[in-house]
């Protein structure tokens, strides 16, 4: 399944980063990638499930290859953006790969954008 693919990607990322202590190696790659992916949730929704509206896209379920390519285009200034060209430059290729794996392993919100918006309660 997608899950194991992303776990493998994230694990190789940890190894590429030099991993750290043996204690840290016990942290699952899934968990570690999840910690990093939470950086994106402020704008793109928890686990990449956007509440919709405002044009802020969700990331959940995007293919890993597509995610990595877009981040590369943002970073190189080849895809027009208001902000992502600035943020993409802050992450290493290994981190982008871990993020790509994580979001590829997430299912989009039930009911899509509408389902997400309903969760927002009083939010206008």
């Amino acid at each position: 399944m997608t899950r194991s693919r992303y776990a493998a990607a994230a694990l190789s990322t940890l190894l590429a980063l030099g991993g750290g202590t043996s204690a840290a190696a016990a942290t699952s790659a899934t968990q570690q990638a999840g910690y990093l992916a939470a950086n994106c949730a402020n704008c793109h929704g928890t686990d990449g499930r956007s509440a919709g509206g405002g044009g802020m896209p969700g990331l959940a379920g995007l293919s890993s290859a597509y995610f990595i390519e877009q981040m590369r285009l943002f970073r190189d200034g080849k895809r027009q953006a208001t902000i992502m060209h600035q943020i993409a430059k802050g992450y290493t290729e290994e981190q982008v790969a871990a993020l790509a794996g994580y979001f590829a392993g997430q299912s989009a919100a039930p009911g899509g954008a509408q389902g997400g918006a309903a969760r927002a309660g009083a939010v206008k």
Partner: protein
Amino acid sequence: MKINDSGFSRRRFTKTLGSASALTVLGAGGAFGLAGCASTGAAPSAASGTQGRVLVIGGGYGGATAAKYLKKWGGAGVQVTLVERQQHFISCPLSNLVLGGSRRIEDLTLPYSGLAEAGVVVVRDEVLSIDRVTRKVTFVRTPEQSFDRIVLSPGVDLNFSAVQGLDDEAQKTILHAWKAGPQTVALRRQLEAMPDGGVYVLSIPLAPYRCPPGPYERTCQVAHYFKTHKPRSKIVVLDANPDITSKKGLFLQEWNGQYKGMIDYQPNMKVTEVDARNRTAITELGDRIEADVLNIVPPNTSAEIAHRTGLVNANDRWCTVDWVTMESTEAPGIHVLGDATLSAPAMPKSGHMANQHGKAAAAAIVELLNGRTPQPPMMANTCYSFVDDKRVMHVASVHRYDPQKKMIEPVAGAGGVSTAASELEGSYANGWARNIWNDMLT
């Protein structure tokens, strides 16, 4: 509904916790409801086996996020209690739009019920004291309890004593509106009541303060209101700082563009006194600036509970933290978040940043409860500022931990600001609000 790894049993448990917390909020069933049961070992453990009792103090952008993610990452075995003195969350970001007239405070007011549904025990109460060593906490209404770890996200207090004459009586008419809520609504009413041709005076404290671009966004919002409703009115900005502290070029584009002639910006003007009877601000140099609406933002400091707990160790104002775990350098086991921290280089005191602090603390606590070594976090910030009712500009940054310096620092070459305010970014800013509120409250 979210679907968790542990499936059915997890969701059942969440439901149980949700109802327990509802009882607690209503004052029935004793202190902290289910948290008491957990100490008997009755609670089922998560797949990860993580166990622990964590108290989160303060349900703002930092604390609510920490509570949500402690539950998300820690699973059923981590008992998370959030104590907050207000019944609802009210967002500071976007609250300047209430002054501008394009939002109501109700639009920025959200319930904590989503966190309760996610398994956080939400308690409406106030902390009286925290023992730094035993982590025993006393409350106004709830019986005292000890916790394995404490997350303190108390926000800022305003140092009224730094402005002579700004006593309790004067504070009834001279507002700060630097914490969203009744003050925001009251300041809007003052602006509405002001006659056309009046003067609004805003005093900005020396940095660091909560929300670096906030005062300049506020200037734009009041200017937008005046331009559309009271075009003969003027704005005087008395800035204690030597210059505009955030997005300077972008704000000047607006002030010299759509608001030309309306705004008198005066740098290096520190207000140290008010004459409340005459609605007059007095600077340290003795200048007297008379206002129809006087809006003073006093200097900011970590909220009082951080002072009382002995966590404030930087300039008698801020709490120094370890940027891997967010733990106070004064008290391991107490993680301090958000505006109360001594900011890392180029790290703003923002709601977005507090959210990232909350996640860093939650990750570190889950790792520590599992006997593992937390890995250094990455953090990112985005602050959107509304220059009128539709157009927005941003400042963004990415922060990476440097193990040599033991400090989190901005990544060189990353981040930046908008080229100009736009309606497109206005749309993104609204999307940001929706998503970050969901991210912290559901």
